[in-house]
């Protein structure tokens, strides 16, 4: 397993918001983490990135990346991991890019920070942009000149350019139009198939998770109540909570009005 989370507990004082017994992602696999808001999904992302302490939370447990234990690392050591080995994209892509800098300069700076030379960074950026099906010229634009879908793809391009092994995607398509969402999801599938990337896809939208993910874990109040291959969990949920969530999802063609 490329990313193995065991016994992860994230707490604010004595209030525990995440209590994961076990969650693992293999190479070339998309694992979904689904649940309602407040179930602890986003805190899990922060914990894996080593950023939980920035919001005042304490992290206990084990997060292993290819065998390396991440929870004990210093901030300096984590910085080498963040972005380079574990990349992340979030719900609001505009937040990842400072509005006063061209998108390309943010990408370049990130690549340079992780050790590439100017030439290497430029080449990697161009290559990655083509992989996400965006014209490399878009790197010269400011974030305000790009749509949400395009910005999200640039964020993914950055992860690609850094050759990250793991991509944490926290509600990356919730703010996007459904057709643009379809494109981004397709892109994530390509990442899995062509780059062998491990993706942790966090969402409250069960339909998206069901379509995209190979395996899915359902979170409730910080705990994983059910976990398994997507087809199994969706068609034969073991937990009543999962069954309730699935029943609540709107389906096309249901009712059709009166």
């Amino acid at each position, binding site marked *: 397993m490329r990313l193995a989370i065991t016994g992860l507990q994230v707490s604010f004082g004595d209030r525990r918001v995440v209590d994961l017994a076990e969650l693992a992602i293999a190479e070339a696999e998309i694992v979904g983490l689904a649940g*309602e*808001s407040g179930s602890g999904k986003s805190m899990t992302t922060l914990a894996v990135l080593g950023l939980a302490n920035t919001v005042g939370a304490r992290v206990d447990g084990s997060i292993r990346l290819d065998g390396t234990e991440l929870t004990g690392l210093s901030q300096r050591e984590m910085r080498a991991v963040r972005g380079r080995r574990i990349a992340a994209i979030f719900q609001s892509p505009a937040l990842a890019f400072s509005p006063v800098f061209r998108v390309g300069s943010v990408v370049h700076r990130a690549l340079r920070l992780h050790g590439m030379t100017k030439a290497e960074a430029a080449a990697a950026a161009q290559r990655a942009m*083509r*992989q996400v*099906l*965006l*014209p490399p010229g*878009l790197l010269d634009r400011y974030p305000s000149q790009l*749509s949400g*879908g*395009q910005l999200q793809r640039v964020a993914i391009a950055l992860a690609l350019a850094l050759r990250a092994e793991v991509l944490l995607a926290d509600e990356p398509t919730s703010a996007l*139009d*459904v*057709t*643009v*969402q*379809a*494109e981004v*999801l*397709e892109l994530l599938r*390509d990442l899995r198939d062509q780059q062998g990337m491990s993706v942790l896809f966090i969402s*409250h*939208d*069960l*339909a*998206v998770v*069901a*379509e*995209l993910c190979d395996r899915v874990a359902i979170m409730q109040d910080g705990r994983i109540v059910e976990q398994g291959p997507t*087809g199994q969990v*969706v068609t034969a949920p073991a937990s009543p909570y999962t069954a*309730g*969530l*699935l029943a*609540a*999802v*709107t*389906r*096309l*063609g*249901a*009712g*059709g*009005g*009166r």
Partner: protein
Amino acid sequence: MTPLPERGGRAPTPLLEITDLAVRFGPVRAVDGVSLRLAGGPFGLGLVGESGSGKTTIGRAVVRLVPVAGGQIRFEGKDVGALRGPALAGYRRAAQIVFQDPDNSLDPRIRVGASVAEPLIAHRVVARRLAAARARELLAEVGLGPEFAGRYPHQLSGGQRQRVAIARALSVQPRLLVLDEPTSALDVNAQARILALIARLRADRNLAYLLITHNLGIVSELCEQTAVLYLGRVVESGATSELLSTPAHPYTRALRSAVPAIDIAARSARVVLPGEPPDATSPPPGCVFHPRCPIAVDRCATEVPALRRVRPARLVACHRAEEVLAGAMEAAGQPLSSSREAGASGLAAEGSRSPGPAPADSGDGPHADRLR
């Protein structure tokens, strides 16, 4: 015009009739010639579209929150734009709106009960001293206990805030409700509860509503009729269940296929739309959808398709609607990876027409010069 269900053999007077509506924000034509009809309650009309489709603007125009540049909105036969004074106040009570952002729909400094009571007092629906009690009744109607009246908005969850907003809109006893993305900011369970609430209110209050959303699943549950919008125009409208099961417009097909489905059986072959929606300040000539359309032909670039009847209860704005219904999209071979060659959709993002696989057997004229 959205076709209305026939009742008793004669065409009924619509509750709301929108004719050739045009709304402009500077150079942007947010709404460009939209005509819709909404029957009296209980009735739901879904307005479906993505960003830039103009659906939110239409909703706001109906409640007179944006100035109208052209066309007319008639409520019970009367021109809404011409209303003044007491007639306008009456309209404001008859047609209400619930916004999509539950975080900012309520004044954060005012307690929930007072927020719901405010329109009651402003319109003198009840005597001032009875307003608080009526506000609690309204809160109960949307499923919130009386304890909520004393709370501030930030103490409620998103779903609860949305319900308060609905209660506030209902306080003036509207006959028409505009629901602007009522569930997009909510997660699955809260969403289901709001939808159930809308269904119940519809039955209890004989409500007619305009449901604005990008979520096709919602309209299929709550709306008899649906209109699909693209760049400020109606591209297709008709009975919801038929529209979703057999779309006649390529965009509707693409939208439908892009919706993620839990049931594997419900997933249709994805129609991939290259590029992004075009710039609203300079829409493409002819059919506004043609640069991204997988089956566009020459005619589409020069002639604006009129909204026409292709089935008894279906209106479509597409030159090739009949072919789409007959399966032209599938014949055009829309496998998942055809247009994913490097640069293909990226170049389309610049607004030029997308090169796609030339349909092998649609017999409608040369495609050789599509690649320009």
